[in-house]
């Protein structure tokens, strides 16, 4: 069974260039009465780096475990290369996984850790037997071949010097590499990574990010990466699936997610600085303050809407539409984050440049923004509105650009 499946994957991967590698079809997972995943559908392209991004407890790890075959969906189907694998075990699916805790076998050396999955796949029960493995000629031949593979992978991850150590003699970063090596060694259909960087310190995390993207480019394999860290997802992936409360809210390339968040929650989750939300009631003419320089295009009057302004999209401008006073200031070196009270109970955070001097707390500022990069959401449902802000008085703000990159 295992052999057969391996062959199917091998040939279909080589002969037909199937672009869709992994597909989730209406996958629901219930734990008792609690619904962890609610009819999730997702296609993952061959060779892509896809991130499953969401806050903790949103169901992203459950999704990964269902793809891996460590958990089975209550309803729905998991499809690999056009073939349903629902009900198959992780080994039958031939996926590799890197765990958050690395999950290296503590009683084995790094070499044994990396060799084990290979031996399980390549060698028969008898060839793996202790003692017998030294006697059978086929076992000796195979273990020599395995040793070569292990060395090649260890060299790729620069851990050759650590092969004879036990995991508890390794640092966090070294354990991470050993875990990646164990996943990489046996040529799997896809690599699943479950928050692999969250146990590393900040500097190492940034370094491992680029090493992982590098590895993805070199191997050309499908990577599925689970994280709650939006900057990791944004910087590493081709595509991001944002999961919230057991549903996929948005799937897209990182710029799409950043520039056109599908819901208020996505907008709040993405971005280095938390986005500002200001709730106003749509009017027929000019909007109520602080947006009295704008009219609303595409939403009926009386509707409650939420205006999303990214702090990094606000900048000091002599003709800025938002007028307020700096209440709090966080100096960060290249920039400073100011909390500006706008009056009427509104306040926004803005990222201010520091090269021309830092403003002081209590100072009055005018902030301008590009009306085309404002996000509008329905206050009730949180859905993105197809509406836009239109500047009223000429010269009050820069003309709105509705185009998005």
């Amino acid at each position: 069974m295992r052999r057969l499946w391996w062959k199917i994957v091998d040939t279909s991967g080589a002969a037909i260039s199937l672009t869709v590698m992994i597909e989730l079809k209406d996958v629901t997972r219930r734990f008792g009465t609690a619904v962890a995943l609610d009819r999730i559908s997702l296609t993952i392209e061959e060779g892509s780096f896809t991130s499953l991004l969401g806050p903790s407890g949103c169901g992203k790890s459950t999704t990964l475990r269902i793809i891996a075959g460590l958990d089975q969906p209550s309803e729905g189907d998991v499809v690999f290369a056009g073939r349903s694998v629902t009900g198959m075990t992780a080994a039958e699916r031939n996926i590799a996984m890197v765990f958050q805790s690395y999950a290296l076998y503590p009683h084995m050396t790094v070499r044994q850790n990396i060799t084990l999955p290979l031996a399980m796949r390549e060698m028969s029960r008898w060839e793996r037997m202790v003692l017998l493995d030294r006697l059978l000629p086929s076992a000796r031949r195979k273990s020599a071949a395995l040793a070569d593979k292990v060395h090649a992978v260890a060299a790729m991850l620069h851990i050759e010097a650590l092969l004879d150590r036990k995991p508890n003699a390794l640092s966090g970063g070294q354990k991470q590499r050993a875990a990646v090596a164990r996943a990489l060694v046996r040529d799997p259909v896809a690599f699943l990574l479950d928050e692999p960087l969250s146990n590393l310190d900040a500097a190492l995390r940034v370094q491992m990010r680029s090493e992982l993207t590098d590895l993805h480019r070199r191997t050309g394999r499908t990577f599925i990466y689970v994280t709650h860290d939006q900057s990791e997802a944004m910087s590493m992936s081709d595509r991001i699936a944002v999961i919230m409360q057991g549903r996929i809210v948005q799937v897209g390339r990182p710029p799409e997610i950043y520039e056109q968040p599908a819901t208020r929650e996505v907008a709040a989750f993405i971005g280095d600085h938390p986005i500002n939300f200001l709730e106003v009631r749509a009017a027929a003419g000019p909007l109520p303050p602080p947006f009295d320089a704008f009219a609303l295009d595409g939403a009926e009057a009386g509707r409650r809407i939420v205006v999303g302004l990214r702090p990094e999209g606000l900048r000091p401008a002599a003709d800025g539409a938002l007028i307020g006073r700096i209440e709090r200031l966080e100096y960060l070196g290249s920039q400073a984050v100011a909390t500006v009270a706008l009056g009427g109970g509104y306040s926004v955070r803005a990222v201010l440049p520091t090269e021309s001097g830092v403003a002081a707390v209590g100072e009055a500022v005018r902030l301008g923004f590009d009306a085309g990069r404002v996000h509008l959401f329905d206050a009730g449902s949180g859905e993105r509105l197809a509406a836009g802000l239109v500047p009223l008085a000429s010269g009050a703000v820069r003309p709105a650009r509705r185009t998005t990159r």
Partner: protein
Amino acid sequence: MTVLAPITRLVGPALLILGAAVVLLPFFWMLSLSLKPADEIFAPGIHLLPSQIEWRNYLKAFEEVPLHRYLLNGVIVCGGILVFQILIAVPCAYALAQRRFWLNGAIFTLVLAGLLVPYHVTAIPVFLGLAELDLLNTYGALIIPFVASVFGIFLFRQFFATLPADLIDAARVDGLSEMAIVWRIAFPNAWPAATAFGIFSVVAHWNDLFWPLIAVSDPDLATPPRGILYFRDEEAGSDFGPLMAATTIITAPLVIAFLLAQRKFIQGVTMSGLKG
């Protein structure tokens, strides 16, 4: 305060030494008697140390009864029990600790309940069963009743429950079957628990007199404590020197084994959350 400090610091060790002396005295007395000449054993007055070392007691112990035979029986019985106990308890404990299945909780409750039942209670039904199977007076009668150890299942379960779930999942991803996970991943990581259990099991069965007394009457199958009894039944009831020498010989393996495994033993007991 400063004057009292050294005294208070001495109280603890002093109490410990006193406790140790009380516990060790019978052992010391046994050792001392085993090395005393026969006439000195019954001499009036208390002499802790023999006036001269009498090694002949040890030779006599082997001459008067087949002590080597009893020791061998002890090794066979305790070894057999331990091997089967581990073969059975480890997979059971893994299933209880790491797999979700119907009645998992209920079965674990039964295991805990089983811990409360002294084996003397079931001795008669077990004896009747063995008689029915015609197994009395065999090694089987000494081994089979103990192969399923609820204590072993409990101890290993507590240990396996601390294994990270990721570790088990990683093994599944790597293509190990559940049985392979038990023996290649879970068990090798449970050495402290295995050592603790091994000591508990071997000590209990090596020292057990109750069951061998019931299940076997053949002197060739006698375990060490049962053998000592033959010793005392002989007409030489007054020959305490060789008797004490024999007792020393059968106690020694346990003491040595414990001293060697002490560190792992304490680890195993404390890590399973079981104190005592």
